[in-house]
């Protein structure tokens, strides 16, 4: 499968500044692509557009040549956000958060080091690194074809970072899921990605 952004331009309603200008990107489901830029250059915005959360002003997002919006039901492009504490419902227990995913295999939950004792807790009772494991598991549902990882390990310590990436890399390789890694850490991108694209204004 192929995920494609074609000549996308975008600005927020209240913004005076164009965030993306004719931005294009191609991601194959067999590759791992890095995306880097300073803050404020639209890294998160481009992920949101690629995952269908925002509609671009100009240009289109294509999945295997068809517009992403024409796929109904579960979205095959899943985004993992930078701040896990802001991307889970604070009133749901963690096991319910996992149920938001798409027919999750037990293997994934185990592989990410999620402990049984955490499942009955609420988000506020877990640390950032523990929460992020749930967010990653939730995104790895059965019908996921692409993962957009937006700075998903910046707030974690180095050991947890490498734990999470090693699991994720193995998983996407086995299932042929395309992976977009957004980060400002060059050593990390060099370590993880087949190629790296720079986003410039």
């Amino acid at each position, binding site marked *: 499968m192929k995920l494609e952004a074609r000549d996308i331009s975008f600005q927020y309603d209240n913004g005076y500044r164009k965030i993306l200008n004719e931005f294009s990107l191609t991601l194959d489901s067999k590759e791992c692509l890095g995306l880097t830029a*300073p*803050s*404020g250059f639209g890294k998160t915005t481009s992920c949101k557009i690629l995952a269908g959360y925002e509609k671009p002003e100009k240009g289109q997002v294509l999945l295997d040549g068809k517009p992403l919006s024409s796929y109904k039901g579960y979205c095959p492009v899943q985004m993992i956000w930078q701040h896990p504490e802001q991307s889970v419902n604070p009133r749901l227990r963690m096991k319910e958060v996992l149920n938001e995913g798409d027919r999750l295999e037990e293997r994934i939950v185990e592989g990410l*080091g999620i*402990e049984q004792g955490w499942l009955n807790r609420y988000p506020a009772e877990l*640390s*950032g*690194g*523990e929460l992020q494991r749930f967010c990653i598991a939730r995104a790895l549902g059965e019908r996921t074809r692409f993962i957009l990882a937006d700075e998903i390990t*910046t*707030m*974690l*310590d*180095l*050991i*947890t*970072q*490498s*734990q999470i*990436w*090693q699991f994720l890399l193995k998983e996407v390789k086995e299932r042929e899921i395309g992976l977009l890694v957004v980060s*400002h*850490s060059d*050593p*990390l991108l*060099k*370590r993880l990605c087949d190629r790296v694209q720079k986003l410039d204004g």
Partner: protein
Amino acid sequence: MEENRTVLSIEHLSIIFTQYDGGFEQTQLRTIKDLSLTVKEGEMVAVVGASGSGKSLLAHAVMGILPYNASMSGEILYMEEELNQKRIEKFRGREIVLVPQSVSYLDPLMKVGSQIRKGKKDEASKRKSHSVLKRYGLKEDTENLYPFQLSGGMTRRILISTAVMEQPKLVIADEPTPGLHLEAAKRVLSHFREIADEGAGVLLITHDLELALEVADRIVVFYAGTNVEEAFVSDFYQEETLRHPYSRALYRAMPDHGFHSVPGTQPFAGQVTSGCPYAARCAYTEDACYRDIPYQEVRGGMVRCIRMDSDNGGLHDMGKGDGK
């Protein structure tokens, strides 16, 4: 030059929270355990630890702003005298300042200019605040903005500005860099470096070891509520000069040094009962690891590990690439 004075000295600090565990059951949750460190004049010491390890509590303990259900044991000395509630109330905001974690510590309904001046309206304070803003590359009219109008990077600089309005002798920076890209983060840290170079002691609290290594003089490695090692920045240039297995694991987890991980997660502070908090994940655990372990000096640094022998200055049977 005379010997630099010790600005802050923390000895055997423990923090215990009293909680209600359903009904009238009270439980004691120990979040920081036997923590010791020192900061000297002109020195920048970084406390590096994962989220949930109790780093922010350390800052709050020094500032005397722990919540009411926390109790503290051990000693905190400021300028070689005990820092009790009376003294901290006298010094905080003046000689001892905290640069907090996020924009939420600013008053959302107050212009940043008056927040930097702490409400003072006299000419001298105004002039001083203008020069402080200028020092951090902010325009004079920034003072008329409200916190919500600031970008992430500007907010950081405003928070630092509030700290340097007086002549601080001790600056505690709690996670000053998240959400900033590398260049911006380095710029923010260079401001703290400057403050240290001007003679103040700076205690930097962060999860980002790679950044801390660029600016600090010494690194205190923090794990599950206690410090397992204190090392010079130069000790992190290679694995062999590090003293604790956890620090070595951190070293090996860097993308440039192999990206190796260790299974398991940091235990909750309350779960560690005695002994080394890292014992459950360490490849070299033995029975003695679960008993009390002294914090001892080795090669100029400090370490809390029974395998560390102060005589030969190295870890027994721990070559390069151990624990895989």
